[in-house]
């Protein structure tokens, strides 16, 4: 971790709801190096979108009581609105999760793309300039060409038509690709992609992933890729962060994670992947805990097949289980991954070792996936 472009340290995010304060994000830490692609995976509702929106500063209704978000070494949380805004776009950009609602319904796709090309990174813009621009033709042709090119690159057939279309006239996958195209137009240093492939068919998704790859290669862009498709995560990412209920429960390089999944939740997740050969499995029983009244101990304990009474009481701080592998589970022993947990580590909770390890061999016992090849 020589040169992290983004470091998130002990981030907490709370929402005020009528049932009380929802502690949605509960002290997460992770970082992304320059040119690295990190994946954030986890159950729906575990707080992935909230995490990245906090990074972007797009959560006006949330409070961040604690934590640090360092972008290129600078704590963005302490910046003013305007300064923060100036970091968006060219520096960090985002592909929003919901393709329909993230496109302005009253502007054509082209208009929205051109705006990004034209205005991005200009912090101040006077009204008169805006009006003057609307009346002039200026560098439009060039921008138009670039935008249409980009639409073509995200595999949109008939990019000219889509350029002239309003979002309602597009299919779900097309909208999503438009969002991707817009984010790519700005060629940011850090790209956050919130489930960008959900609405895409596999061939298209594959193409888009290639495109991202290219971007990473050429511009040394860092990507934070949110997905629930572990297959995709495996394909695109260098590192994977597995999130559960507002906490990161396992962090490891991709190869490592697939070779040696540790947290029971990660294992459950891998098990549930539908495969051509083995079926879709059952998923993991139970729900996410109530964020307004989260358990004091392990947030996964209620659903964990290996949980013991102690799991419900003691907070399972993330611990090092390998050179670059951290897991937040009492089944594992190890030094705390973060300094702030040292006091907890002094008094470890012992609920034994993981059964699949206890068997002695390194063959995983209860999951269907074994280490895949790294692509």
């Amino acid at each position, binding site marked *: 971790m020589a040169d992290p472009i983004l470091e998130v340290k002990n981030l907490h995010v709370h929402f005020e709801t009528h049932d009380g304060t929802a502690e949605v994000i509960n002290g997460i830490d992770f970082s992304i190096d320059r040119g690295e692609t990190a994946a954030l995976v986890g159950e729906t509702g575990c707080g992935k979108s909230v995490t990245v929106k906090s990074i972007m500063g797009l959560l006006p209704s949330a409070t961040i009581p604690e934590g640090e978000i360092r972008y290129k070494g600078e704590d963005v949380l302490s910046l003013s609105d305007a300064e923060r805004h100036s970091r968006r776009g*060219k520096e960090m950009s985002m592909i929003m999760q919901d393709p329909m609602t993230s496109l302005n319904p009253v502007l054509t796709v082209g208009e929205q793309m051109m705006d990004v090309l034209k205005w991005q990174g200009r912090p101040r813009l006077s009204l008169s300039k805006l009006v003057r621009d609307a009346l002039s033709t200026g560098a439009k042709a060039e921008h138009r060409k670039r935008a249409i090119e980009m639409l073509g690159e995200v595999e949109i057939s008939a990019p000219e038509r889509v350029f002239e279309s309003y979002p309602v006239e597009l299919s779900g996958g097309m909208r999503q690709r438009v969002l991707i195209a817009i984010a790519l137009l700005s060629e940011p240093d850090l790209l956050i992609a919130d489930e960008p492939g959900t609405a895409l068919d596999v061939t298209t998704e594959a193409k888009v992933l290639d495109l991202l790859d290219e971007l990473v290669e050429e511009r040394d862009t860092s990507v934070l890729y949110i997905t629930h498709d572990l297959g995709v995560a495996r394909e695109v990412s260098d590192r994977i962060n597995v999130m559960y209920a507002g906490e990161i429960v396992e962090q490891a390089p991709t190869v490592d994670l697939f070779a040696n999944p540790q947290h029971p939740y990660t294992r459950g997740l891998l098990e549930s992947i539908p495969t051509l050969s083995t079926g879709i499995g059952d998923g993991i029983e139970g729900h996410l805990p109530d964020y307004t009244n989260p358990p004091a101990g392990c947030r996964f304990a209620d659903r964990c097949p290996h949980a013991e009474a102690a799991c419900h009481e003691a907070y399972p701080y993330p611990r090092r289980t390998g050179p670059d592998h951290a897991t937040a589970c009492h089944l594992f022993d190890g030094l705390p991954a973060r300094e702030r947990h040292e006091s907890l580590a002094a008094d470890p909770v012992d609920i034994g070792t993981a059964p699949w390890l206890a068997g002695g061999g390194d063959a995983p016992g209860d999951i269907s996936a074994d280490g895949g090849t790294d692509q």
Partner: protein
Amino acid sequence: MSYVDYLVRRAIHSVPVIFGLSVLIFLISRVIPGDPVRLALGPEATEQQVATLRAEMGLDQPLPMQYADWLFGVVQGDWGMSLRTNNNVFSDIVARLPATLELTVVTLFFAVLLAIPFGVVAGTNKDRWQDHLSRITALFGVSMPRFWVAIVLQIVFVVSLGLLPLSGRLSDGVAPPPAVTNLYLVDSLIAGQFGTFLDAATHLLLPTVALGLATLAQVMRLIRSDMIDEQRKDYVLAARAYGLPNTLIEYKYMLQNAFTSSLTVVGLAFGFLLGNAFLVEIVFAWPGMARYGVQAILYQDFNAIVGVTIVVGIGFVTANFVVDLLYGYLDPRVRLEEG
């Protein structure tokens, strides 16, 4: 449906509207109590005089006959005689409409021009001082009657400060520009008389403010409310994520969505002001149609009432039509309906 189809259809539909309006107004103008004939002739008039004039005007005929006669006249450009002016109502209106039109259009233009930034600023600074300032202005705009505002403006800007002219469309001694549209601002520019243009503009200033405050208030508050709605929309957040300038986000991404209700009110205000500018016209001695219309109502000048109401009706129909077109233009989701 294409705009051209829509235009044609809408034009066809306004025929029954105007027809219906004329029937209704014709009826109302005859139902409301009062005898315009007697009023026109003065108190000393004899029964016979009254009867003669009544017959002359066809008022002794049954209502449907009267209406038919009137309609027949209208088709030929004869809108009937005004009892108060003894002129053809049509020419009366033609003489007065430009003044009101000029006032109304300029008022709306400035009301909207100011309401947009005020509304946007209030909306994006909800519950901060900008919002409160806008609220207080709005409040003043709607709870103080126009005439009161007008008089206070006169006292401040004419009597105390001596900055602006008191009344009328032009100063004494300034000849109206050569008539083309009879909108002095336009005509003076056409004729290249900039002195006259300035004079006309200074005369417009106070009436415009007095007349436009309420519209400004409504539009401003509606924009504010819609801007607040917009703020949480995903596409606005997305636009922020792309690092677009705030001004662009506010005035393009949010405003265009937020403008529907304000647009409606602006359209309606046009028609409304056309017929209701009278209090301001009266205070500023503005020789407009609204004043004529109110006089017509007070003196129950049948034909003038019907004439003015129809012109105002046409104003409403046109404004609403333009608004509907703009809906379609500003929001592609809105399909043009044959409405």
